[in-house]
């Protein structure tokens, strides 16, 4: 049987859902092709009034915080050294890796001159939030790729790189946290320039801080969300007792977030808050359904044990974040009188394709790489210890010989 045949058969074996995802990805790919042939003007509903649309709002501004699981869990597991959470790290890293790779895809599609993307490295403009974010995203994607190499190396049993990567795990986690903090918040900085455009419900100088905080608790929620689903649909072991730990961390961050937001709204807004009913409604939904209610759920005792509640709360948080990012980057920008932007078919297909790709690749990677298997040795990876243990071992052997 030829390789192709092998692959085909393999695919034949996949679940309907996966095949469906593949179709969506295919469509997305096709749509992006169309975009490059006919140009943004024809294929999207973007125009001079709405230069940014679905692709920026979702593929970038929203996708980035959704991929924040990697660094948040990294912090918790590696830096705060809560080892028992380590099983959650790899899936998160994979999601992060996919997330960021797809963010890059999204960005490239949205650029008018993608072939010049590299210019960001050639001409620096440190005053540009976009510059900052592009740098971070590039850097972080590399980090994630390296982290992702981990399971890969494991799979193929490349021992040297594996050791190297293991030793780098912690530094990476720290680096990831540093970079993420910057660009998660800077995504908020983007919209500080829109001082006369973004509605006061969202515009305030603390937007970056809010973006960062929401990214953190959403990142953790994503981990919960994912783990639950994976457990549910991919028959992976139930991690809900691990997740319980997260549910204990999340509300703290949320509380902080709410505090900051309340303060900003009370003291730092520059315009009328209640002049646009629709926006007000959106805002309330975002806050209540997306923050207050899940917050309420997270602070209950019940959530520690109740899987379904965990999932629900996490889902709400995610919904809240998505809505928030859209409110900031799209709805809150709509000027009264202007015709309202709605994404075109092509735009939608591309975005759907990207989401599908995310799910698809995640499942496939999980299928072929050790993402969920717990590592053979549950030891800490810090170098000094490792040395210690090794020569300690020798002694032991020596002893044997003497014997």
């Amino acid at each position: 049987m030829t390789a192709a045949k092998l692959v085909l058969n393999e695919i034949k074996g996949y679940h309907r859902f996966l095949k469906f995802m593949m179709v969506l990805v295919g469509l997305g790919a096709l749509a992006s092709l169309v975009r490059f042939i006919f140009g943004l003007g024809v294929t999207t509903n973007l125009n001079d009034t709405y230069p940014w649309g679905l692709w920026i709002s979702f593929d970038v501004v929203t996708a980035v915080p959704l991929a924040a699981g990697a660094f948040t869990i990294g912090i918790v597991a590696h830096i705060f050294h809560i080892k028992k959470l380590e099983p959650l790290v790899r899936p998160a890293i994979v999601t992060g890796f996919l997330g960021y790779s797809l963010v890059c895809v999204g960005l490239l599609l949205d650029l008018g001159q993608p072939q010049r993307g590299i210019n960001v490295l050639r001409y620096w403009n440190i005053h540009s939030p976009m510059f900052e974010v592009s740098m971070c995203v590039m850097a972080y994607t590399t980090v994630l790729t390296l982290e992702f190499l981990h399971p890969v190396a494991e799979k193929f049993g490349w021992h040297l790189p594996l050791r190297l990567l293991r030793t780098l795990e912690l530094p990476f986690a720290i680096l990831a946290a540093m970079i993420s903090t910057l660009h998660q918040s800077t995504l908020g900085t983007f919209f500080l320039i829109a001082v006369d455009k973004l509605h006061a419900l969202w515009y305030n100088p603390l937007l970056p801080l809010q973006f960062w905080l929401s990214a953190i608790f959403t990142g953790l929620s994503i981990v919960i969300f994912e783990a639950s689903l994976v457990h549910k649909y991919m028959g992976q072991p139930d991690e809900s007792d691990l997740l319980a730990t997260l549910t204990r961390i999340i509300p703290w961050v949320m509380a902080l977030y709410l505090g900051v937001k309340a303060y900003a709204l009370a003291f730092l807004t520059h315009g009328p808050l209640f002049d646009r009913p629709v926006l007000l409604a959106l805002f309330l939904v975002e806050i209540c359904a997306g923050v207050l209610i899940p917050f309420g759920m997270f602070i209950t005792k019940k959530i520690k044990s109740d899987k379904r509640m965990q999932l629900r709360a996490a889902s709400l948080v995610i919904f809240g974040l998505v809505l928030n990012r859209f409110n900031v980057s799209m709805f809150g920008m709509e000027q009264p009188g202007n015709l309202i932007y709605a994404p075109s078919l092509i735009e939608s297909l591309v975005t759907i394709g990207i989401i599908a790709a995310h799910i698809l690749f995640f499942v496939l990677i999980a299928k072929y790489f050790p993402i969920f298997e717990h590592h053979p040795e549950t030891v800490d990876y810090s170098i000094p210890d490792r040395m210690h243990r090794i020569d300690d071992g020798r002694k032991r052997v020596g002893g044997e010989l003497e014997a």
Partner: protein
Amino acid sequence: MSSEKIDFTKTKTFLIDTTKCTGCRGCQVACKQWNQLQGEQTHFFSGEGYQNPPAMSEYTFTRIKFKDYQKHGQNEFAFYKEMCMHCNEPACASVCPVGAFQKTAEGPVIYDSKRCIGCRFCMMACPFGVPKYEWSKAFPLVRKCTGCYSRIKEGMKPACATACPTAIAYGPRDEMLKEAEKRLKAKPERYYPAIYGKNEAGGTSVLYLTHQPLDELGFKPVTQRPLPSYTWQALRFVPGIFLTVGGTLSAVSWFQQRKDRIRAEEEGRTASGHHHGKDEKKENSL
């Protein structure tokens, strides 16, 4: 963004006195001619009066807006020229990841198409909605009023200012401001008491005088602060935050690791001690 070292009293500035504008649109056509911009397909009129085309675009860098309305029984028929304001501290320049926009010492805010990656952040950022995109193209660039930089460098006036019979004065910003103030003082009944562009967006190289209140003519009320400062107030913390986060987290992890290591070592020691004991036993038995 090289605007820091620029002397904003000397930057060349348009003083557009709408009370002198006859709406002849010579400027609009002169601009198209100098920049060789294609005429747009229009139908009837796109706004009040004879206004056309519907908006500034990749083909239209400047446009006369018409206002045709009644105010306590009196006709108001007003015209004003939209164009790039050539801000002292341009938002477009500050947000551009590749620094494609640049405020020149002469005054115009110019655009280096070779750098542009087409992210359209400039369009988001511009408080006056000036930069336009080549939506017609597969690989679009941004287009906007160039301030006729190529003419300025040759000591000429911009094409529009040259064509204008009445309304556009062009010169160093301080002189234009002085002139504007002079006119306001000389004919208070003729002018609405404001110079649009004096402080808007932190000051621009285009100044307007009007008879009608600014909002009636549709001038955008924009912040008086330079827009870059809004993002900079956050961005300036970047290095700090970067290091702080790095530092703290390293510290934390080191601390945590240490805790755990100590625990681990203790466990380790007891384990090996026991072992030795056994050995000794063995030795003793020999």
